[in-house]
């Protein structure tokens, strides 16, 4: 079976499920969601962080071709940029549905509060999205232009800033010791680069032209890069968790224990560590396996699952710990719970956004000159 057709079908089905979720969200508001006033950010926020990370990371990867002109990555810049764009669109869809009043988003631009990290993030991602669009246009129309390289250089800095801002968004919150980590703004750009590198594996393996002579080298480099970033990420996590447990601040320890042994233990041990880290690590570090294109693609998918779960496991556990002991039972009512598992509507929308991103990548590959190596042809 043609892999592209398979993914078109799968993503189309996912999109249909997502449309039902979006319909429910638009008609009934937030009533049928499971995030609440205590676990106030749920799956949609986690997926926004994930997609935004993939967007920033994909841009970083695209600079290998379009800014640094590394020969083995020749021809991958445009599809990386496009992947970043569709990922950003999926992330914005996710966060738009999460907002209580999306129709007022213009207020962030006109009546905003510049000292808010969220303000900085919204502005940053807006400029970043527009920049990606311009860069993609130039990469297709004028791949050799100086302006493209200047914009790519600027965009590289911006991608570090926006992904760092996501870390800062959480890190500035003294009320949540689990998030209040000074190095979050440093860690998140690394997470983004890891997500971008991982995203390129399935994009190139499943949808990229088979005849590219550099493909094996690309897989090997991206695989080693992904493996190294997984190890760095695991080290960051170990440092965060061990310091938290050793420090013994109750709210912090409770959040770490929630990840390791609480509601989300299976997501952490099985999805994030086993499927999302160790299996890809074992495969991607073996050079002989770069021949197996499909396997490499699926390893990328595994890594992405791990990174998406990791985003959730940064968000939910911190919010699952009551700010004050006994707040959990002080007052009952819908959406007043410290236990959180996404509702059907939340899953539906998330499946839909994943479908949307997948279809976006496929359509881009089919209708835009994203994989063609014009630069090479021009020289020839």
């Amino acid at each position, binding site marked *: 079976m043609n892999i592209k057709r398979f993914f078109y079908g799968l993503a189309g089905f996912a999109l249909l499920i997502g449309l039902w979720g979006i319909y429910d969200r638009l008609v009934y508001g937030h009533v049928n969601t499971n995030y609440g006033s205590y676990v106030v950010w749920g799956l949609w926020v986690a997926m926004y962080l994930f997609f935004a990370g993939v967007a920033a990371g994909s841009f970083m990867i695209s600079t290998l071709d379009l800014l640094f002109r590394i020969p083995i990555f020749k021809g991958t810049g445009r599809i990386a940029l496009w992947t970043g764009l569709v990922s950003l669109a999926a992330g914005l869809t996710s966060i738009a549905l999460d907002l*209580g009043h999306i129709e007022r988003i213009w207020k962030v631009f006109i*009546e905003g509060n510049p000292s*808010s990290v969220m303000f900085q993030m919204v502005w940053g991602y807006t400029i970043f999205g527009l920049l990606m669009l311009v860069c993609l246009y130039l990469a297709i129309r004028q791949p050799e232009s100086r302006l493209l390289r200047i914009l790519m250089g600027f965009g590289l800095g911006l991608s570090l800033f926006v992904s760092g801002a996501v870390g800062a968004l959480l890190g500035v919150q003294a009320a949540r010791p689990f998030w209040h980590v000074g190095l979050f703004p440093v860690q998140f750009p690394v997470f983004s680069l890891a997500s971008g590198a991982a995203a390129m594996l399935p994009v190139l393996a499943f949808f990229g032209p088979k005849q590219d002579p550099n493909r094996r080298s690309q897989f090997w480099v991206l695989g080693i890069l992904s493996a190294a970033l997984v190890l760095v990420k695991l080290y960051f996590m170990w440092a965060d968790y061990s310091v938290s447990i050793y420090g013994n601040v109750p709210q912090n320890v409770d959040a770490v224990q929630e990840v390791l042994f609480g509601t989300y233990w299976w997501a952490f041990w099985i999805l994030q560590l086993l499927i999302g880290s160790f299996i890809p690590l074992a495969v991607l570090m073996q050079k002989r396996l770069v021949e197996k294109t499909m396997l490499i693609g699926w390893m990328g998918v595994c890594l992405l699952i791990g990174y998406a779960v990791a985003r959730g496991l940064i968000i939910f556990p911190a919010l699952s710990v009551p700010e004050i002991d006994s707040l959990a039972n002080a007052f009952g009512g819908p959406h007043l719970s410290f236990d959180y598992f996404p509702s059907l509507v939340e899953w539906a929308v998330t499946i839909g956004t994943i479908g949307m991103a997948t279809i976006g990548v496929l359509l881009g590959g089919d209708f835009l000159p994203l994989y063609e190596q014009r630069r090479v042809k021009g020289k020839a």
Partner: protein
Amino acid sequence: MKEISRRDFLKISGAAVSLLGAWEHAPEQALAAVNTSVKAIPQAFDVSPEDDQILRMQSDLRRALQKPVEERRWVMVIDLRKCVGCHACTIACVAENKLPPGVVYRPVMVEELGTYPNVAVKFLPRPCMQCDEPPCVPVCPVNATYKDKNGVVVIDYDQCIGCRYCVTACPYGARTFDFGVLYTDETAEFDGIIFGKPSASAYERSASYEYGDARQRNDHTSSPIGNVRKCHFCLHRLEEGMLPACTTTCIGRATYFGDANDQNSLVADLIASPNVMRLKEELGTQPRVYYLT
């Protein structure tokens, strides 16, 4: 006590009947009529030490209202030794602000200490702390939440985009999100057998008057649905010279309210006592809610 004459009785009854009639047809107009009749702020009055503390606080409040708004410093004092955990303040707040399910401004936390038979129960009412250094304010991307002239942290429902960043920033869990749920959403209805839903639902959807604005709940999108909500010391009552609902309702007289900048006020006396504490002071939030322990 002055006796009510037959004429007065008929006048009051007539007014009450017409108010009820008006309520049935147009609760907003009826409430508006009531609101306009209590606009004038009453003057402070003399209170003797034997009088109920509520009277003293009322007088303190009226005295404070005569001052420029910037010179008032509203604080709340909660005497934990007097709180009996009746939750009347929570319910009064829900009723006063017409809070929907899942939205709560002043829960009372109950903590059981020790093991049987040496058990004690501790109650901790938790309104918004109205911090002088509120962590919820700088994080708002659209300046929808801010400290108003009274020093109370308020939310502009028409400005709030519903991102809930402020909820995550509050170390007291004092903010809740309005998901648009109604108490009557799941209520059964059966013509002639189960009744009451239409009128209960109509009441529930009729306007609440927080911040002095009439806001109905007729759909899933109109503010305050989709907004973050919180305690605001009943600003709409203060402006009318009335104490916050939780304060007047407290059966143990455990909640005090007033202007800490007035050295003659009851709250100024109370927060000068040595057994005062504030929640999570180490975070530097400078709460305006004090607890007596």
